[in-house]
């Protein structure tokens, strides 16, 4: 039998139903794997007691024939989702020992369907980053290594050598899924934070349409862009998880009142008759020939599966990233104003209240967060608002219009690379110029700006033996087509062989 930690969610669900193993055994297998993988730093908090209690409750429900859609499935939770009674940090020091007295809607939905929480996953501070290097709790080590790399588990249990990043901001989520430390994980995506780490780790990640998933109880970064989604090991698993995470929520006015389709059923729909657009503007200067080749290969796979491939144009693509670096920091500066040392988290005393605010925020926020809050403050300040913020919001209208025009031509989904390169090493990017790191999101950020759904699916390995992903962008509220087309890519590419547990 396959090791319990190596099952897919679909396989584990079937195994639990057939009583081949119990939810408790499944949780125990994962807790043991997590313990041996602490050097990866994927979890910031392990919750073995909750996990075993929830698994026991799942076993009881299974015995009574009352199993939910995710009954007994052990998941990792990005530490951006508030979990009642379990410390939630957002990867920041400023939240201190914040212990939420409420549960986020996403996690509530998962528990209602019977899922089991293994722990809270590392992330870039407030989800601001593309490498997990901005976390106040240290970087996450990718389970992937370049061919011939010297990275290894040292005698002291620490990792030796220059390891790779898992991407970010959902770096802990992607690393934990790839390293078999959970069957699936929750993640969030503001500019690419689900899809880029999924691409870097050979996993599947979907950012649903803005409004599909409730944002209530999820620590806010940029409210008009943030959307939660799953990272999993197969397209089917991502579909299973997203169905449970989604749904209307009276507590979030931006969460739509639309019924949640059976995403899993869409997985086997096939792509016959679909029109897939290839946007010429995504052929950027300096793109690696391997990525270009893979992109072409992806189009050929979809064509062979019965789709029609059409060249399309999204003329404002190049402006999405600069417009994002106005809109996202502006919203962040506003959202993060709440961390003032009064209601929760860290407080550093000062000579008066303003001094207390300033000292608290100086001590509690990391460099990247401070920089973004300051950029956001600047672009919203008197005299600069129209030149920066209003102009960026106009660009956003144009970016969305580009997509609408393409979809009006009968295109069902758009195929692009997920990232401009495979994973890079820790400390390799963005130390001098933050823009170097930001360019990671060049292919994913357009999707957030337009509020559309996007999925990253592993499609192959580069010459260093590292995974590369393709992205499919869909019409608003048509995640189903992304699951159908994503499955066609997974079928053609074959499932990526994930790394052996060299760290254990």
């Amino acid at each position, binding site marked *: 039998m396959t090791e319990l930690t190596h099952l897919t969610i679909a396989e584990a669900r079937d195994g639990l139903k057939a009583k081949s193993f119990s939810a408790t055994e499944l949780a125990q297998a994962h807790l043991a794997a997590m313990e041996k993988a602490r050097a990866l730093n994927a979890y910031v908090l392990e919750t073995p007691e909750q996990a075993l209690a929830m698994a026991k409750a799942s076993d009881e429900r299974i015995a009574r024939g009352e199993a939910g859609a995710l009954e007994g499935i052990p998941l990792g939770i990005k530490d951006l989702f508030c979990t009642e009674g379990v410390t939630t940090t957002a990867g920041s020091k400023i939240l201190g020992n914040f212990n939420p007295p409420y549960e986020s809607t996403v996690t509530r939905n998962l528990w209602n369907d019977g899922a089991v929480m293994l722990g809270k996953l590392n992330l870039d501070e407030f989800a601001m980053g593309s490498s997990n290097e901005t976390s106040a709790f240290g970087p996450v080590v990718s389970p992937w290594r370049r061919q011939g790399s010297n990275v290894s588990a040292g005698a002291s249990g620490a990792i030796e050598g220059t390891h790779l990043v898992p991407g970010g901001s959902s770096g802990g989520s992607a690393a934990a899924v790839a390293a078999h430390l959970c069957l699936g994980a929750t993640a969030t995506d503001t500019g690419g934070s689900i899809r880029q780490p999924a691409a870097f780790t050979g996993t599947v990640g979907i950012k649903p349409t803005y409004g599909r998933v409730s944002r209530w109880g999820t620590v806010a970064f940029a409210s008009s862009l943030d959307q939660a989604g799953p990272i999993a090991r197969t397209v089917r698993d991502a579909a299973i998880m997203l169905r449970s995470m989604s749904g209307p929520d009276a507590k979030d006015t931006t969460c739509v009142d639309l019924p949640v389709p059976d995403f899993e059923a869409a997985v086997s729909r096939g792509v016959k008759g679909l029109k897939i657009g290839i946007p010429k503007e995504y052929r950027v200067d300096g793109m690696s020939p391997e990525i270009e080749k893979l992109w072409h290969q992806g189009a050929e796979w979809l064509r062979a599966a019965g789709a029609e491939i059409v060249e399309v144009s999204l003329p404002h693509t190049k*402006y999405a990233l600069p417009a994002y670096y106005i809109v996202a920091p502006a919203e962040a500066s506003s959202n993060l104003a709440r961390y003032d040392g009064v209601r929760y988290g860290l407080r550093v005393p000062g000579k008066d209240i303003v001094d207390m605010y300033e000292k608290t925020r100086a001590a509690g926020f990391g460099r990247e967060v401070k920089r973004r809050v300051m950029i956001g403050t600047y672009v919203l300040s008197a005299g600069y608002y129209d030149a920066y913020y209003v102009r960026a919001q106009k660009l*956003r209208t144009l970016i969305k219009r580009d997509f609408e025009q393409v979809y009006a031509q009968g295109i069902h989904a758009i195929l692009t690379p997920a990232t401009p390169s495979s994973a890079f090493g820790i400390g390799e990017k963005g130390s001098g*110029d933050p823009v170097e790191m930001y360019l990671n999101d060049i292919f994913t950020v357009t999707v957030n700006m337009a*509020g559309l759904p996007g999925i990253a699916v592993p499609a192959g390995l580069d010459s260093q033996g590292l995974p590369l992903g393709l992205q499919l962008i869909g019409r608003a509220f048509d995640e189903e087509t992304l699951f159908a087309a994503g499955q066609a890519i997974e079928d053609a590419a074959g499932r990526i062989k994930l790394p052996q547990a060299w760290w254990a």
Partner: protein
Amino acid sequence: MSVDEKTVRRIAHLARIAVTDEEVPHLQGEINAILSFVEQLGEVNVDGVEPMTSVTPMVMKKRQDGVTDGGYPEKIVQNAPATEDSFFLVPKVVE
């Protein structure tokens, strides 16, 4: 556009973040790198384009204006660094 050191200090104060003398030049360099990156937005003719206000066209959900939650002040203040009788404590604001 680029910012000078004085502007960096002004932004930091507006953002309520204390900055040290050593941090200012680094922040200035990084902020200017970002401002120079976003400058390309000036190339686009945006005349007559409406700024986006809602990414998904939808009617705002409404509900009756009534109390639906609350009545647990101890939960509200449970994470606060300083409290007294279900109130948040802050340094003196009014003399």
